């Protein structure tokens, strides 16, 4: 089969998965998780009624992004989107429609993963950017533009990059969990605990948590509390490829698992 045909098949799987995500409950769940920090920020800004000082704005957003977005809403939003890529179709008894087409199962897994990555990156990246802009909005147009021009835009881009890397890494983990576990919730909660307590771990163990690499890339550092074990941030040349390498390895595993997977919904 030619590369061009496989690429068209990949695009077809991608499009079908996008439609499935937007038509189903999974998409609504992801949307709610992604929009929550933005809604919270909007309410805070509206209730407060006055602009944040420039320095305070950055630290407030950094805190919101690291503690709420990265560690809660994005994590569980990705669980919704990626955990159900295969498992959701198995439960809905629709997986066979894909598996009865002349498509390699690796292509199906990759197409589904890319669709979920596009949706989660778009929603979490977009709403994170909107939250930042809402915080900035109280400063007036010229001050806001000046803030963006003097490093704000670069920091905003960095946050969006971290969001995409987080979706890629967590997404791959949840894709595999969705294939491997009958209910991915419990292992996902265990993983969340591991990620959440990363700040308490010694340096060597910190490096086993995805969050460590992601936090190393955030442009503003937020104090992690008096119990935190302070570790050296990972340099960008290592922190950027780390989540991608993890995602690549897990995708290879997911493809291998998909090739061996059986579809039996219990008919007969």
């Amino acid at each position, binding site marked *: *089969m030619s590369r*061009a*045909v*496989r*690429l*068209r*098949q990949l695009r*077809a*799987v991608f*499009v*079908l998965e996008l*439609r*499935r995500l937007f*038509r*189903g409950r999974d998409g609504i769940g992801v949307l709610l998780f992604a929009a929550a920090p933005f809604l919270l920020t909007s309410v805070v800004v509206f209730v407060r009624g006055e602009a944040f000082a420039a320095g305070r704005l950055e630290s407030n957003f950094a805190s919101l992004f690291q503690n709420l977005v990265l560690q809660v809403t994005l994590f569980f939003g990705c669980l919704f989107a990626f955990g159900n890529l295969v498992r959701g179709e198995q439960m*809905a*008894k*629709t997986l*066979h*429609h*894909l*598996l*009865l*087409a*002349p*498509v*390699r*199962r690796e292509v199906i897994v990759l197409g589904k993963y890319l669709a979920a990555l596009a949706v989660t990156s778009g929603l979490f990246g977009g709403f994170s950017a909107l939250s930042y802009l809402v915080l900035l909005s109280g400063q007036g147009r010229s001050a806001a533009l000046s803030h963006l021009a003097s490093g704000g835009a670069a920091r905003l881009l960095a946050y969006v990059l971290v969001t995409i890397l987080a979706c890629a890494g967590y997404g791959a983990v949840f894709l595999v969990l969705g294939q491997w576990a009958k209910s991915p919730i419990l292992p996902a909660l265990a993983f969340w605990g591991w990620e959440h307590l990363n700040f308490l771990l010694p340096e060597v163990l910190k490096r086993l948590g995805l969050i460590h690499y992601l936090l190393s890339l955030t442009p503003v550092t937020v104090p992690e509390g008096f119990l935190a074990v302070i570790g050296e941030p990972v340099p960008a040349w290592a922190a950027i490829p780390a989540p991608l390498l993890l995602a690549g390895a897990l995708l290879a595993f997911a493809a291998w698992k998909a*090739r*061996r997977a*059986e*579809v*039996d*919904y219990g*008919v*007969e």
Partner: protein
Amino acid sequence: MSGALSGDLIVFDEVSKFYGEVLGVDRVTLSIPPGITGLVGPNGSGKTTLMNLATGLIRPTRGGVSVLGLPPSDPERLFRVVGYCTAFEAFPPGVTGRAFLEGILSLRGEGGAVARSRAARALERVGLVDAAGRKVAAYSKGMRQRLRLAAAIAHDPRVLLLDEPLNGLDPMARAEVLELFRALAAEGKHVVVSSHILHEVDLLADRVVLVKSGYVVAEGEAHGLREEVAERPMQVLVRCDRPGFLAARLFEEGLVSEVGLHEDGLGLLARTKTPDRFFLALNEAVLEGGLEVETVTPADDDVKAVYRYLIEGGEAS
């Protein structure tokens, strides 16, 4: 079996499938040539397991399967030549019949125009053109069955596996679909039809394979089996708005030995020894009397009785 020998056959070679401790099928050896083959057995006998094995949805615990020389583990090549109409009823949420079909066909990587053209032709062949723009969720059971069939035949496969394809179809649609199967077989294709109703397949198939409790208990030309069961009465359940009229008509033509009307006045259970003529007369009565028919189902679920009759020489119930 060598590739050359198995190149035109669907081959099961000593195939066993266990679901944990539970037997799916055991030591099945079959070679299915082109033409219509009926796979008959009661629910849970292993028919769907055999079809799922042939299409790679499940893998054998032992033995090997090939379809026209292709292994089921190679979906890229296998599903260029195989179409499988499953018994699984679910469709993706929110899709129309046409969108579903075009989506499935787009997976073949042939481009949108080809997918649209193939989808349109398949919808036409199964008589679903008018409903193609409606959401599948609003389809009747028979329409969903026809849509599954359209998905299986849309790419013009050489091998067609059909799991209980007549379920939920009204008499007219049933006749049309049977005609479609005959036309596909006449083109030299393999058409494998599973059913738990022997008579249903008997009307259609060149060969019949009887499956029971995971084992192939008999196989051969349908003609021989047909003669053996010719005298065996068959029960048919008809749900319609005027069962009294229908019963009178069938009695008048001497096609039923016994008819029981349902208490709700919306159905009857008829017993006939001439099913071919019975179904013909039923269609005529429906058309002439303008009956609203909800379902027509052969009620001889007790295939065990047929097995006793065919294999053990016992009396049919």
